[in-house]
Every structure is written in C-alpha cells, then in structure tokens.
C-alpha cells in the first residue's frame, strides 16, 4: 500500500540579515492511511515550521529550499497557487493551537464554515448550512443550530477548539495537520478533545500529523512518533518503542525530565543548558553540546537518520545518533 503522505528531504530556510538559518533540515517521513504520526519536540525545534511548510504557508524571509511533499502521489510543492488554494482546507486541513486567533472574531462560526464548504465542495447555501451543522454536531457541540450563528467569543476555549476541528473536517480532507490542538486547554477539556480525536479517527479513518510538546498526549493519540531537535529529526519509530525504549539520548532525556505520576523521584533528571539559538547550533549533531554520551565525531559530522535493525519487531525504527543508547 502506498502511503498517503510522503515527505522527502524537506528543508526550510529563513534568510535573515544575520545569514541563512535552516529551521527544518532534510526531514523525511511517511504516513499511511488511517495512521497518526506524532511530531514531538521543544519550542524552536522546527515542528510547527514543518507543518507550515507542507501547507505552503511559509512567508518571506522563509522559503522551502528543498524537498518533496507527495499527497496520494501528487507533488504538492509543484502545484500552482490556484491549485494550492483548492488544496488548503480541502485535501489538507489544519487545526491550530490557539482557536481564538485562528478564527475570525467578526464573522460567525457558520459563516466561516460555509465559506470553506462552498469553496471546496461547491455546495449551495442551504446544503452548506446543513453540512456545517452536521459537523458541529459530530464534534459534540451542544445545540449546534444556535452555535452556527454564534461568534467565536461566545464559545469557551474547548468549544472553540471543537468548532475548529469541525471546520477542518468539513470538506473530508485526505490529510489533517493538528498543530498543538490541546496545548491551550485545561486537562479535563484536553481529555475531552483527545477522546474526540480518537473517536473521529475510528469513524473517518483519517490520516493525521499531530504536533505537540507533550509526550503524554503523543502517547495517547499517535501510532508512530518523530522526535525533533534543532530542526533535525532525532528518532522515529512506533510510539510504544520510542517511549518505552528510546535510543536517542535526547528522547531519553526528554522522557526522564518529565515528572511521572506514581513514580516519584527525589530529583528529576535534567538536560543541562537550554536549546541553543539557531546560529549557535553545533556544527555536527545539534544535540552535541547537551548530550551526556557525546563522542568526538558528534562535534564535526551530522549523524544521518539510519534504520535500526531490531530483531524482535518488524516495525521500522530509525535513529540519528553515532552513539545510540
């Protein structure tokens, strides 16, 4: 079976006054139909830039400088601007972190949904209204008919995020990108949204790229994980493998630095220092200056993401490290 999403050697560069800075450095991955890929990393690791690059939403001074994005065999980066307009919100949809800034505050929820449905599905006014209300009901918004005429500020944070999800799914996208969709929400509301995600995925067999910094969230929604650091891919593999036996020192440190319920330790393990500024990244492996297992070659050569041979599993697993755990 061919994967729905194929990203090959994606590279996004920002041409700043201080010189070019590569926010995403030759990242490749594939997502099969019905699968969820979790992209995890700390702020500034390039996970959001990766998604914006796929949607071709990177503005100057940034530019996708290399790579391919194939969606069901079509090369999206080769699309004309008008083809791209038909793709965004249609074939590929995106959910953003902060629903209040992503929704237009002076237009009703219904208006914003209709706009999208009429553009992509060519529905009449009445049909698009029905479709919008059906979607609002699907994501569990109570009294969806009234909410159709509400403005975003009438809704609470959790409801706004549900409306965003309804909007994203309204045109039956082939691929959904969710960029930190639960980060701005409370834990109990986050749990509701994650449950919604799971049930929608079962119903609609969606292909999802789910971006978050929270390893707990990743563990509950995704089938496989890509760990990013400083614009590079560190490690990829199935969620269980990555979270239970990480091979890259960064993944391991990230997992250990998180307080775990029911496993109290007197001190948390930390990663010394902080994520270096883009122009201060080491020449070799981006994690070299904070890595406990650093070797001399780490400073001078960039490790490639290479497949690991794991005898016990058939799952593919790769790590970019000269000295994996």
């Amino acid at each position, binding site marked *: 079976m061919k994967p729905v999403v194929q990203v090959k050697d994606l590279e996004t560069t920002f041409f700043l006054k201080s010189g070019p800075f590569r926010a995403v450095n030759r990242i490749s991955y594939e997502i099969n139909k019905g699968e969820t890929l979790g992209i995890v990393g700390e702020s500034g690791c390039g996970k959001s830039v990766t998604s914006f690059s796929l949607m071709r939403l990177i503005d100057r001074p940034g530019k996708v400088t290399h790579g391919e994005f194939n969606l069901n065999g079509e090369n999206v980066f080769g699309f004309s601007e008008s083809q791209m307009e038909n793709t965004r919100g249609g074939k590929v949809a995106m959910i953003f972190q902060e629903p209040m800034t992503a929704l237009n505050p002076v237009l009703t929820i219904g208006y914003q949904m209709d706009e999208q449905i009429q553009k992509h599905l060519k529905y009449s006014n009445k049909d698009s209204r029905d479709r919008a209300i059906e979607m609002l009901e699907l994501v569990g918004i109570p009294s969806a008919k009234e909410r159709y005429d509400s403005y975003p500020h009438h809704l609470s944070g959790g409801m706004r995020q549900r409306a965003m999800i309804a909007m994203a799914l309204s045109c039956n996208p082939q691929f959904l990108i969710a960029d930190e969709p639960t980060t701005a929400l409370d834990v109990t509301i986050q749990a509701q949204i994650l449950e919604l995600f*799971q049930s929608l995925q079962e119903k609609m067999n969606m292909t999802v790229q789910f971006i978050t910094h929270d390893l707990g969230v990743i563990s509950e929604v*995704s089938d496989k994980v890509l760990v990013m650091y400083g614009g590079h891919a560190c490690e990829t593999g199935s969620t269980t493998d990555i979270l239970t036996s990480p091979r890259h020192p960064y993944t391991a440190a990230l997992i250990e630095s998180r307080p775990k319920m029911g496993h109290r330790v007197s001190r948390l393990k930390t990663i010394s220092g902080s994520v270096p500024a883009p122009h201060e990244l080491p020449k070799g492996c981006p994690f070299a200056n904070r890595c406990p297992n650093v070797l001399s070659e780490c400073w001078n050569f960039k490790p490639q993401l290479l497949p690991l041979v794991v005898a016990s599993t058939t799952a593919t697993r790769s790590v970019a490290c000269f000295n994996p755990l």
Partner: protein
Amino acid sequence: MSDIILEATAIKKHFPIRKGFFMRETGQVKAVEEINLSIRRGETLGLVGESGCGKSTLGRTLIRLYEPTSGSIQFDGADFLNLKGEALRKKRRDIQMIFQDPYASLDTRMTIGQIVEQPFKIHGLLEKNERESRVKQLLELVGLKASHVNRYPHEFSGGQRQRISIARAISLNPKLIICDEPVSALDVSIQAQILNLLKDLQDRFKLTYLFISHDLSVIEHVCDRIAVMYLGRIVEVASRDELFKNPSHPYTRALMSSIPNIGQGKKKMQKILKGEIPSPINPPSGCAFHPRCTYKIKECSEINPQLKSLTTSAAHFKACHVNLDTHLKEIL
C-alpha cells in the same frame, strides 16, 4: 514558634462587575469563597485546579496583592490583614511571590542586577557595595553567572528568566514563597531544572512554598500536601501519598484520570468529565461541581458540602456528600 506559618480563615474574594455610565455594580465574580487553609512551616502545599477555579486569586489574596472581601489571615504570629505602614512592610519581606510568565514579570528596561537589587532598595537594606555583592551571590545561587548583572531580561531564555524571578523572590530571605505556576510556561527539559532548583533552595534555606499549578504530575513531584480547588472552593485536602492513593472527591478522581500518561499506548479514555467549569458569576446551587458529577445525589444540588475529615483518615478532608467507596461497592 507555632508549627503553622500561615492560617487563612474564611477568605472570600469577590470582584465587582460594573456596567453602564454610572458604573453601577451589576454582579460579582465570586473568585474565592470561604476558604480555610493552613500552611505548615517547611512544607510545600500544592494548590491544584483548572483555569478559572480561583487558585491564582487565592495566592494573590494571601500575599495581599488583592485585599480579601472578608476573612482573616494569620501570618507568622501576626494578624496580616490588619497590619499597616511600616509593620506591614516589614512583614511583607517574609512572603514573596514567583509569577507564571517570566516574560511579563520582569521589567524589560531594568538590568537583571537592578531587578534583583530592587527588594533591598525598597526595604532600605544594605549599603550600595554590599548590595552589589549580594546580588552577584544571588545570581550564582540560582545558576546564573555573576558577570550577567548588566544584561537585560530579553537576553535570557524563559528558563533563565524564571531563575531571575527566583533570585528576586529569595533575596530578602523570606519564610514563605508563593509560586504561581512557575513552570507552566517552560519546556519540559527546562521545567525539570527549575523544579530541582526550587527543591535545592527549599532544603538550603528552610523555605515554605505554596505551589500553585494546574499540572497534577508536577504537583505530585514537588508537594507534601495538596489542596484541590474547584470554582472558588477547596474540595479536597490531603497529604500527597494519601490523596493519590485514595482520592475521595469525584473531581479529584476525574482530574487524575484526565492526565495523559506515557507508555500505555493508545487507550480508550475513561471517566472523562463532561461539560465545562461553570461561571463564577453565577455558580450552581449546592455543590458547585454537581452539574458535572456522575455520582450526584439529591442533596448535592441543594446543600453546599463543607470540608470535613474522612472517617478513615483525620488528615484527609473533602467537601462532598457522596461516599465514593460505598458508591463503588453498590455498582460492583
């Protein structure tokens, strides 16, 4: 010296809502309702709850950043709410605060040296050269370089800024520090560094913390005792081990089961709380949690439950009419 450093009794904080040309009072946001809380010397008391439950308002009221609507606060042997002028200023040295957002809580036009020096100036302590050496000492204590005194906050990362806030908070050797979500704006790896720093400082200076957070896993890691808040009230208080072993309020249980955990793979979520936190302007009658509670009985919508100790453990308090254990047995 008494064992209790701060005792708050029946603290209420209502914010008026004013509308119209004459700014007439049209309602009240009941942010904090009748809270009784005592903090023991040397402990870390956790205050956990979702946004809008009043945990930050309570923290700010305890330090008198907000004047409470009613109630009393005994702090370290003094009637804190009735202190005035010089006496109040002296007492305030002993209680300090660390804020959530390290980008908003530091003055961008002051160097970090000036920021950390400010408490000494306000309280008229130490000579100029003594202050300078003390500031350098404090910066090193929180893991920054003394040579950075002349830099401005924008030159530092979020974690480093939070270290500056901590240096400022401990500068006057306070007895109690109110930490209002000190790590929620930080990345996980940085969060661990700050939590470890807070722990080291506590051991070294015998500090008492009131630790406010929405994150139960962080709370479990740092706190000795935990108070759970919902819509302006405390619904459960117990020692950490007791609370996690035997959560007795339905809200505490729901909160615990909502936390995503690593390594269990994709699983069906259980016991998810339906609905959202109601508005504190017009809270539900009786128990504020009853519209979302799966165990509610008739009394819940009529009588507001008081915080009472459990029959099984005298140090474990909850405000709930329902006995969850018998309830669970009935179901089984």
